């Protein structure tokens, strides 16, 4: 049997899975940002009439995943797996959304890299012959993340200039064996890379080496150059991490050029007071499901690399003085 694995850590799909549908739901702040028109649904309230922010996040993910199903109008019994993840302890938003959706469920955790990770794993399931259609989705919510990782929202603190703002948003894709739409052609699963950054207010710096490592290996594995991509979008290093990743790659002999950007940088305007940009699983999910999918569909982009970046620490590990391990997962999408 032909091995679909190439080089160090890349898989190339023999029959690239198709992205049949994409759906994104965001909170009010994201709805005021530069990408507002690309989202399918904008909530005008963080709580959305629910009794807690956690319930609201679950509803958001549920809405995004149902939205993707409804777009194609595919019967649920033809969707073989649901892959989802989020930032909360024990990924409750995903499990609780799966409780409602009722599909066979695989929970994933890759911190902010979960969207790219779920796209990679979903594509492997389809190309491996284990599934016809796979529903993937992730979510994050600013207020649930703040209270779990940082301070209560009403506490009067100053955020560091390098800190990022957790996006309230959920993005979902329906992947299928056949049909029309952009295709996922290859994926590079990242290694955990830790360059001893321990500052939880500078996650971009913690994740940048992991992202750079994955990009370097991906291009090496496929013997490609940065110019082979119309867009390389990390998600979500923020402004500090993006600059650092670019610099690290340059020192490693790769000039990424102008096509290298970051979902966390794209999602907010500078005037929205988010400091280094957006973060959270939902960030790269809604930017991809919204903006990037639209550009792929109209042909403005033909080959895109999405590099999900994750900071794999917990509040406990940080209190115990551990540094923040970073990871990057790359998926290539072609129109």
């Amino acid at each position, binding site marked *: 049997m032909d091995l679909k694995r190439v080089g160090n850590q890349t898989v190339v799909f023999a029959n690239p899975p198709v992205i049949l549908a994409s759906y994104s739901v965001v909170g009010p702040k994201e709805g005021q940002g530069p990408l507002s028109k690309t989202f399918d649904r904008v909530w005008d309230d963080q709580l959305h009439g629910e009794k807690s922010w956690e319930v609201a996040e679950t509803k958001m993910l549920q809405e995004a995943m149902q939205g993707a199903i409804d777009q194609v109008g595919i019967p649920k019994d033809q969707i073989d797996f649901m892959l989802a993840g989020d930032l909360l302890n024990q990924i409750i938003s995903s499990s609780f959304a799966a409780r409602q959706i009722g599909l066979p469920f695989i929970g994933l955790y890759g911190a902010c890299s979960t969207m790219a990770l779920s796209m990679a794993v979903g594509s492997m399931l389809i190309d491996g012959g284990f599934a016809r259609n796979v529903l993937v989705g992730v979510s994050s919510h600013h207020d649930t993340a703040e*209270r779990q990782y940082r301070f209560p929202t009403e506490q009067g603190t100053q955020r560091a200039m390098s800190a990022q703002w957790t996006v309230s948003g959920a993005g979902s894709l329906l992947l299928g064996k056949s049909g029309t739409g952009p295709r996922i052609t290859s994926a590079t699963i990242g290694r955990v890379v830790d360059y001893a950054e321990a500052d939880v207010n500078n996650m971009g710096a913690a994740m940048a080496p992991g992202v750079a490592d994955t990009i370097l290996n991906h291009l090496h594995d496929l013997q490609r150059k940065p110019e082979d991509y119309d867009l390389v979008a990390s998600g979500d290093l923020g402004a500090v991490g993006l600059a650092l990743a670019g610099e690290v*790659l340059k020192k490693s002999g790769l000039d990424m050029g102008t096509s290298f950007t970051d979902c966390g940088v794209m999602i907010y305007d500078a005037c929205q007071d988010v400091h280094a940009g957006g973060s959270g699983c939902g960030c790269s999910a809604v930017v991809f499901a919204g903006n990037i999918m639209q550009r792929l569909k109209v042909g403005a982009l033909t080959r895109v690399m999405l590099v999900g970046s994750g900071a794999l620490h917990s509040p406990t590990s940080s209190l115990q003085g551990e540094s923040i391990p970073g990871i990057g997962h790359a998926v290539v999408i072609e129109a």
Partner: protein
Amino acid sequence: MADNNLRKPTISVTPENYKALTQQFTPKPTFVKNVVRAFVVGGIICAIGQVIINLFIASGLSRVEASTAGTATMIFIGALLTGLGVYDVIGKFGGAGSIVPVTGFANSIVAPAMEFKREGYVLGVGAKLFTIAGPVLVYGIATSIVVGFVYYFLN
């Protein structure tokens, strides 16, 4: 396509290099602005406290009583502004200027307690009330006892 070659692509940056790069690329806190704001906000809060104490003195309280009552009033104001959702805005602007005064202490009591109400009144509100107040009381009271002991033995 590449053959199954093993490893090599590793980023050419050592942890030491990376540390220097991180420092270079990470924006510094806006020191001067932060200090000026902390001074002004902290000063204003204390000046308001002084006015309240003066009012208590004018109403006939002794200097010590007035100071105690003034502190309690400031705690009330800090707690109220946190409940109204205003104190985090002041805190974002004033930094330590709004953390260090007792109003900031009140904020650090109400903010977690209010937010964990959804986890119940005993283990939510009751327990989280002391997230920051707890350590403050532990170290404050323990220090005062040590000070008392030292004072006793020196005299």
